[in-house]
């Protein structure tokens, strides 16, 4: 077995406190000046707030002076925790080893995932894309040591979210030396002290005598420093996904177009994919609820279910099913929340990668196609034959939806008896005119077969007493026509009917 060199990617959410209230998925909110307050002081702010001159630690009154129409949100630790869990769930797509770190950071051990996702750059791109879909601003850092990756991700600025990366252990200390000392959590309360002794970056800190540093600043700072340089091992508590998947999401605004729900559905889907990957499951039944107005004018939620004939865990297929389902939906009132629940799963089947793929694609592909067609066209419009053993042609020719269980295949000898049937049946038999005592359809019809008498259905109301003939018109088109025996040929009632066409 080949052991991979360790490699970690850290995802830092610098604006998490604000983004649990104001999501960047909604473009129009981005220009708004908005801040979060904790104990009366600004703890996080939007980019436009930064441009307006608002700084961290300002009081609400100061913000009011700088920007009159700023939005204030009280910091909500509970929401932040839920959001971090959602992000961690989504990141389980890329590795089963995900853990939380201080300051809204998530660490992912990706050393075993590199070849699966096509290298570190492709993987980082995918992680960033996932974060964009989830609706969070994220910066990343990559290093062979978890604590170092965490430092690099925190160092990455908002303008350059693709933070620094170090792949080799021997380059690590050189890169870390330049980082400012305030990035360490244990250094935060000691900022003034460290500045006072001209200790600005990690290199300065490492050059200080250790016993003295431990006595003045505590042990935590040294431990953190050693962990960053890989001199001390770190124990991680891995994040475990919940055994059931039921995620509720509140929308930032009231949404009335079903199509614009797709952005938020994608964010739920990203979490679902991570959850499925962590549990090694494939989903067969998804339940979705669109929540409407609550309270006094409560409206029951719009619900729909996605049943999958073929268990699935691929993003592209699930996304296209969501897209079709949502574009079909007619909303009767605005949506304020969404709920996604997995009702049924099965264990994922490992895919076999044949050397020569079959030219027709695999059977799973076909089932996926049928699901997609059913999602848009409706299940009653995508049909498969389920012939009945009956002499009456319109009853024998029975079609059922493709999502129903197919009937057992007919044995070949059972089909031989019905040797001559038209390819096409008319939905309703068409009464034919009579010209010179002969049936007439466009031109005179000439009978070219003996009669086939079909008399059946006496046990219910649909009795048929008909003599079927094959007839040819002037243009050599063959028709399947019948004479209704119950009707008197001398009366006004039509006697001849057209029932089918031979293709």
């Amino acid at each position, binding site marked *: 077995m080949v052991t991979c060199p360790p490699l970690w990617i850290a995802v830092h959410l610098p604006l998490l406190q604000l983004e649990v209230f104001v999501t960047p998925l909604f473009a129009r909110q981005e220009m708004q000046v908005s801040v979060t307050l904790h104990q009366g002081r600004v703890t996080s702010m939007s980019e436009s707030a930064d441009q307006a001159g608002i700084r961290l630690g300002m009081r609400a009154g100061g913000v009011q002076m700088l920007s009159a129409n700023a939005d204030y949100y009280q910091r909500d630790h509970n929401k932040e925790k839920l959001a971090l869990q959602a992000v961690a769930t989504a990141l389980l797509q890329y590795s089963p080893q995900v853990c939380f770190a201080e300051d809204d950071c998530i660490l992912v051990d990706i050393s075993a995932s590199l070849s699966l996702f096509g290298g570190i750059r492709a993987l980082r791109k995918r992680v960033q894309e996932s974060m964009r879909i989830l609706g969070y601003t994220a910066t990343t850092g990559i290093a062979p040591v978890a604590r170092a990756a965490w430092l690099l991700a925190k160092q990455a600025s908002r303008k350059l979210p693709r933070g620094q990366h170090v792949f080799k252990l021997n380059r690590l200390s050189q890169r870390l030396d330049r980082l400012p000392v305030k990035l360490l959590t244990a250094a935060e309360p000691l900022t003034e002290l460290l500045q006072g002794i001209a200790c600005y970056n990690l290199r300065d800190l490492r050059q200080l005598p250790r016993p003295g540093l431990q006595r003045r600043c505590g042990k935590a700072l040294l431990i953190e420093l050693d962990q960053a340089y890989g001199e001390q091992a770190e124990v991680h508590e891995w994040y475990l996904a919940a055994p059931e998947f039921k995620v509720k999401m509140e929308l930032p605004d009231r949404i009335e177009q079903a199509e614009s729900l797709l952005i938020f559905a994608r964010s739920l889907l990203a979490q679902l994919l991570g959850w499925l990957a962590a549990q090694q499951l494939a989903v067969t039944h998804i339940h979705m609820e669109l929540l409407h107005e609550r309270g006094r004018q409560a409206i029951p939620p719009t619900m729909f279910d996605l049943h999958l004939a073929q268990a699935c865990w691929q993003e592209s297929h699930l996304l296209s099913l969501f897209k079709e389902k949502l574009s079909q939906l007619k909303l009767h009132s605005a949506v304020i929340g969404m709920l996604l629940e997995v009702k049924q799963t099965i264990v994922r089947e490992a895919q076999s990668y044949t050397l020569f793929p079959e*030219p*027709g*694609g*695999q059977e799973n*592909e*076909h089932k*996926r*196609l*049928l699901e*997609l*067609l059913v999602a*848009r*066209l409706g299940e009653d*419009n*995508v*049909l*498969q*034959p389920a*012939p009945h053993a009956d002499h009456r*042609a319109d009853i*024998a*020719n029975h*079609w059922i939806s*493709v999502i129903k269980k*197919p009937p057992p*295949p*007919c044995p070949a*000898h059972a*089909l*031989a*008896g*019905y*040797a*001559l*049937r*038209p*390819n*096409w*049946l*008319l*939905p309703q038999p068409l009464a034919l005119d009579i010209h010179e*005592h*002969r049936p007439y359809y466009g031109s005179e019809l000439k*009978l*070219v*077969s*003996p*009669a*086939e*008498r079909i008399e059946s259905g006496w046990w219910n109301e649909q009795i048929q007493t008909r003599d079927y*003939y*094959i007839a040819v018109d002037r*243009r*050599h*088109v*063959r028709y399947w026509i019948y004479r209704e025996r119950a009707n008197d040929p001398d009366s006004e009632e039509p006697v001849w009917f057209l029932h*089918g*066409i*031979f*293709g």
Partner: protein
Amino acid sequence: MPYVSSLPPEHIHPALWRASQLARGQGGYLSSGYAELNNELPGNGWPQGQLTEILLPQIGTAELSLLKPALSQLDGRPIVLLTPTYIPQALAFACTGLQPSQLIWIRCNKHVDALWAVEQVLRNSSCGALLFWTSSIRSEALRRLHLAAQSSETLFFLMRDMRAAQQASPAPLRLSVQATQYGLELNILKRRGSPRDAPLALHVPDHPYLYAYAHPGKEKLATNYGNLPSTVDSRAPAFTPA
């Protein structure tokens, strides 16, 4: 020395040929089942992964007897019937060697849905053939379908009315078909290669049931086709004018 098959290489796989042979056009071809027609078609058969237009004087009259020999060679891969004018009868398809379970009948309420379904079926390429009936189609939609067809290996036939023969079309192969007394008459309106002006007559053998009726005394031909419905009296007159 290993055994060298005398089988022509294109029978092993459509993408194989001997160095002494000429390579055919890109993509696969499937024999139409009519030797006379194969000689007239580029690649000796129906093209896979291309749009083929079949123009008819009356929808539903001749296309299936033309296509059924080819459809029966699909080795059980699904055949999609998209928006046919009438109700397809599965048992009639079954008589020609197709399994009824191969058929998928798609109905659409809107024309855009049908075009969407075409693209999905072609892109997925798990189906052996796609037969699409339409009364009117815009030329940009046609071009789009042709592009979609090129990304797949599906046999794709578009059935249109004969009046569309005058309109330009991006389809590389266009035929018009009508029924005659002995079978079918084809006009190749457009193909890759020299044009053909004279109509091509295809002989479609009569069903033994009809043959026996038209030629009394020669029923022996019919015996190997299994038993006919017992309700039929083959000697009875077809129709007696009142």
